[in-house]
């Protein structure tokens, strides 16, 4: 059931009615049932996978929590009698127990993810290596089902497990409630990846009907559909044409593809998240923002703090920090400092951790080498700019450049945008050599005249489509510009009811009229559903 299907809208309307008609205490149960139905409608078989994840996470969480409770109680009880060493030994024993539980559950669940998503990638690599050694045997690819939203729900539930194991949240003792946290349908298919501490309170609370909040949610849903249906899905045929027939495309088209894809991906992904957060808001639940005007970032590092925030935060919190302070890393650091000297040696663990994070971020996006290269590409530029920072400072000083001036900021923003568009080519072409080759063509092969005369009219877009896209882009850009200080919805809400009615009314009519949905348009999934 796609967000953009009629059946989903019907599902949503029914849910809203039931949710607010029943006593608010029952709301979380209604949500759980709705999420189960949502999931089961996609395929009942998937429920087994997510069910196993819920059960193991629930069990491990309780065991970890019990262990902490027991430990604290024991120490409190024997405060007087325990020597420092005894206490340490007792704690160590408990910690080791918790480690077994924690790692067991973590490896099991990430194992499911790895097997379902990455088996064929592994097989293809093994075959590649065997071919290198001229081995005649080839492993057969396996036909595995990939459960809906597995990357998202595995990450979310394992995030919970880590938090419990760190004793930073209490384990959820109601399995239904934990199931709701994992299954919560608006964010199940494309994120954001919520942390238990952020989501749980408002998820289980009672939410009496509040028309203000409800309409705010609906407004956000409308805005999300506008982005998805009017902009993202309209430009989709052109993006597909440009990337599929790359042999005939010169530099101009590669740049065009970069721009089109930037627009499509932004409208698609942020639109989807707007719908997710809007639905949650209409239900009275707070889901954290996943984007803060990312295309206005001044460097890649900042970009990743503003784009798909929940994923970046997840990796920072649960991967980067633990990896950079783990024992092997500390050992490496020691050795590195000895060999390379204090200054460079100090950086080794940071860079190693960064590389690991980006490698995994790449693989998370897809089981293929292009995503690996894409991830490492991001990593490369982040480290490069870090290393060259003194050079930049020197240049800026010599040239008397004032960083706070608008033109310098504009330069930074445009530079970052271009870099991100270039890196995204790996995601587009899904083929490493082709991507390098096409990026190369932007440097020497251009035929703008013929492209403007004929080329751009053969991409599957009509003149009217271009006009709609240009207007849509202007709207997106203006909204981003105006939302610098205050959320656009708040600005509109303050201007009074008439304007509010007109704005969302016009958006709604635009969606119906200009949305690329229904017969004649390919039903296109949200891009992030596939991860």
């Amino acid at each position: 059931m796609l967000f953009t299907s009629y059946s989903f809208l019907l599902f949503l309307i029914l849910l809203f009615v039931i949710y607010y008609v029943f006593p608010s205490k029952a709301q979380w149960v209604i949500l759980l049932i709705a999420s189960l139905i949502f999931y089961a409608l996609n395929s009942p078989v998937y429920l087994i996978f997510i069910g196993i994840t819920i059960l193991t996470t629930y069990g491990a969480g309780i065991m970890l929590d019990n262990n902490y409770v027991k430990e604290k109680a024991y120490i409190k009880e024997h405060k007087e009698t325990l020597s420092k060493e005894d206490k340490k030994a007792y704690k160590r024993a408990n910690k080791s127990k918790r480690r077994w539980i924690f790692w067991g559950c973590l490896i099991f669940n990430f194992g499911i993810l790895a097997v379902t998503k990455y088996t064929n990638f592994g097989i293809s690599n093994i075959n590649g290596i065997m071919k290198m050694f001229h081995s005649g045997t080839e492993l057969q690819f396996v036909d595995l089902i990939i459960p809906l939203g597995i990357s998202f729900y595995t990450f979310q539930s394992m995030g919970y497990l880590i938090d419990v194991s760190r004793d930073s949240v209490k384990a959820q003792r109601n399995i239904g409630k934990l199931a709701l946290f994992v299954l919560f349908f608006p964010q199940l298919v494309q994120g954001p990846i919520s942390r238990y501490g952020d989501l749980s309170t408002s998820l289980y609370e009672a939410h009496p009907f509040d028309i203000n909040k409800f309409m705010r949610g609906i407004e956000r849903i409308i805005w999300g559909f506008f982005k998805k249906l009017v902009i993202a899905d309209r430009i989709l045929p052109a993006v597909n044409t440009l990337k599929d027939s790359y042999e005939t495309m010169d530099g101009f088209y590669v740049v065009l593809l970069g721009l089109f894809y930037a627009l499509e991906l932004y409208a698609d992904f942020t639109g989807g998240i707007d719908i997710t957060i809007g639905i949650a808001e209409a239900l009275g639940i707070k889901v954290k923002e996943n984007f803060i005007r990312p295309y206005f970032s001044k460097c890649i590092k900042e970009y990743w703090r503003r784009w798909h925030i929940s994923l970046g935060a997840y990796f920072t919190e649960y991967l980067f920090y633990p990896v950079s302070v783990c024992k092997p890393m500390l050992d490496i650091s020691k050795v590195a400092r000895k060999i390379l000297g204090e200054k460079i040696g100090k950086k080794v663990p940071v860079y190693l951790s960064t590389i690991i994070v980006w490698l995994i971020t790449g693989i998370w996006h897809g089981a293929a080498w292009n995503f690996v290269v894409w991830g490492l590409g991001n990593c490369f530029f982040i480290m490069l700019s870090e290393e060259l920072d003194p050079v930049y400072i020197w240049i800026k000083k010599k040239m008397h450049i004032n960083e706070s001036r608008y033109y310098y900021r504009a330069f930074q923003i445009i530079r970052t945008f271009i870099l991100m568009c270039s890196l995204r080519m790996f995601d587009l072409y899904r083929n490493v050599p082709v991507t390098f080759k096409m990026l190369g063509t932007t440097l020497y092969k251009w035929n703008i005249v013929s492209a403007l005369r004929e080329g751009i009219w053969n991409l599957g877009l009509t003149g009217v489509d271009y006009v709609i896209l240009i207007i849509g882009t202007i709207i997106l850009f203006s909204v981003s510009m105006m939302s610098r200080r205050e959320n656009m919805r708040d600005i509109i809400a303050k201007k009074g009811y008439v304007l509010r009615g007109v704005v969302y009314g016009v958006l709604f009519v635009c969606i119906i009229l200009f949305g690329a949905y229904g017969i004649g348009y390919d039903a296109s999934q949200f891009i992030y559903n596939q991860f």
Partner: protein
Amino acid sequence: MRIKALLVVSALVLGMAFAGCSNPAEDAAEGVENMYQNEEKADDAVDGIKEDGEEKDAEFQEILDSSNKYIFEYDGLTLAPDMNSQEFLNVLGEANHYYEVKSCAFEGLDKIYTYSSFEIYTYPNGSDDLISNIFLKDDTVTTKEGVYIGMSLDDAKEKIGEEGVLESGVCTFDGGGDRLRLYVDGSNTITSIEYQSKVLDQE
């Protein structure tokens, strides 16, 4: 002055930014070739069709050949579903008979070219006409595998080397992008032979 400086710096920085991927395009391409080969297989597993950079034409032909497992050869000409009608018209010349089937209320014209021992149906695809079906009409022509009208289905299966699926009097052999369909009578003798494109399946 400042703006000039800025331009220079922009060029420098952009140059630097791209240094990682502009120059060594070729080398990098070679360097990751092994990776790519693996990736390609993963793609194959997903899509069933691979796409390469430079040998597109040759490869397209390969795809065409592999997806059209069943082809009909006549007078040195290879005929297969989804082939452009111009290709056979150029070689075979005008058909003995030609018929246009106009669909009710809609643009678009299916065309039927009747030659002495086979009949070719086409469907419109943009400004071109592509072959949708080829019917063999008598035993003066055979399929590439040597199957002809009047042969028994068992003999035909043996020649083709596959079992096929017999349903409602038609034995179908799946060829990927096309099908070979043998029409049989009550005594399992072939009465008609058809090559069929899968393109129009959805319609």
